């Protein structure tokens, strides 16, 4: 069953000002799709609309065949959609364990401790300081905690909004490695990225958004090898990267 699909999705912060202007999109089971495009194309708004953070004006959103258009973020999470925002994606005034406990609250009581344990095992960097305040973590560790928080509920779809923003190259590498592992274990991923080269390396498929509309939908390898696409939509700098 299709984990996530949008049909003629129109969305934006204000009623009379749609930023997403009608997008039909499907995420296949086990898929890993990168959402690319120039600045201001509406990449973030697209995934935020899916996550229930930006009002949907018209069109439909479905999760595993069920219509979930217009649900609030906490309801979408309970239906299997986990979203990692770009910034402020952890609770800085709480400990790492408390961050995970918050997420675990949606699970049945007996399952909670086990899932928290599993996440700490998966992210050993977090495990040995689980009592420390999350605000003290480095950028990369914060991103890992945010991913752990989202993954804890065993989502049917994991969506990330620019997880590489502001991270050191080494941390970016770690984050993307983790995403590949998660995807290999069966969780479909939708990823918004500015860092086109890195995104095309990990994603299986990429879609390009321009001015709130879907312009291209192709296997990542194909896009990575297309210099024209790189120059047109992804900015010269990134285009060179994509060509290389």
């Amino acid at each position, binding site marked *: 069953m299709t984990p996530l699909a949008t049909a003629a999705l129109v969305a934006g912060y204000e009623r009379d000002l749609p930023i997403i202007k009608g997008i039909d999109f499907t995420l296949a089971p086990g898929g890993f799709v990168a959402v690319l495009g120039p600045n201001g194309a509406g990449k973030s708004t697209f995934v935020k609309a899916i*996550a229930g953070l930006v009002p949907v004006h018209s069109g439909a959103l479905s999760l595993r065949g069920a219509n979930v258009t217009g649900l609030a973020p*906490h309801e979408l999470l309970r239906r299997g959609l986990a979203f990692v*925002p770009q910034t402020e994606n*952890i609770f800085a*005034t709480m400990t790492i364990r408390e961050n995970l406990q918050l997420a675990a609250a949606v699970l049945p009581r007996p399952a909670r401790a086990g899932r928290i344990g599993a996440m700490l095992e998966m992210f050993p960097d977090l495990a040995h300081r689980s009592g420390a305040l999350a605000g003290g973590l480095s950028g990369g560790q914060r991103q890992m905690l945010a991913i752990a928080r989202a993954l804890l*509920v065993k989502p049917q779809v994991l969506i990330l909004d620019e997880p590489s923003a502001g991270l050191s190259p080494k941390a970016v590498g770690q984050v993307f490695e983790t995403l590949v592992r998660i995807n290999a274990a069966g969780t479909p991923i939708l990823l918004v990225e500015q860092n086109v080269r890195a995104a095309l390396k990990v994603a299986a498929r990429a879609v390009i958004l321009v001015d709130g509309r879907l312009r291209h939908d192709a296997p990542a390898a194909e896009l990575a090898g297309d210099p024209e696409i790189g120059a047109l939509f992804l900015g010269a700098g990134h285009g060179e990267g994509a060509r290389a």
Partner: protein
Amino acid sequence: MMIPQILLEGALTGALIGLGAIGLTLTYSILRFANFAHGELLTWGAYLSLSVAGLIGAATGASLPPIDPFSFTWALPVAGLIAMLLTAALALAVDAALFGRLRGRGASTIIVVMASFGASMALRSGLEFLYTSKPAYYTTELQIAMRLPAGMRATPDQLLMLGLTALVVLAVHLMLTRTGIGRAMRAVSENPALAGLTGIDTRKVIRVVWILGGALACAAGTMSGLLVQIRPYMGFDLLLPLFAAAILGGIGSVPGAMLGGLIVGICEAFAVHLIGAEWRAAVGFVLIILVLLARPSGLFGRAA
């Protein structure tokens, strides 16, 4: 007067202020506006306790003797608990009718603050209409102060209030730090959008906050009514000390609000003895100004 006695009197007022300020600081940090109608929740709580206690008294034929060594009968604590539920319901009702709608419309903070100002006026005058502005009392019993160490004196009622306040504050603190709903409240206070993405139902948290804020306000109002008197303006007159305590402790911090309340209460007690009782009401304002000058995020607050 001796310093220990002034401290004790300050602690008594401070405990009441702190109790009221906990509700204020929680609604402030989670709903993100300064609720000028919070004082009226204290007043309504006090009057609701009075009415329910009156009903209980009428039902039992007013034959209950006071609980030794206190000045009141069993009717008051029972009425107080019922009134806490009623005050919580009142807070939920005001939210449903006013604040919730403004929130849903995305109104700016200041519009909501202004609405709370209007609500405060209406709620207070409503009590004046129902009960007139004549002071009321829970009991007519007179209590004799007991001798305590260090030359202090206090009535059994006063000591009971101090003990009860300490228990309630401890319970709220444990709830916030140790339970799921407490964590959820802290999460919404830090980042409502992320809280939603983490699976927290913000509307449910907001309901819990109003219930808690209303119930604690009722407890503070009832205790204040027992120790002093019940007037339609009692909560409004406490509003500035409540804000001072919440700001002093850092918005959102329960121990901070309690400590802030104690500081305000003790400063008021010293002001009364050193300058004069007529200046008591300005103490809250002076403290607010001092905190805003020195450390706007409060004693326990994080920088905004």
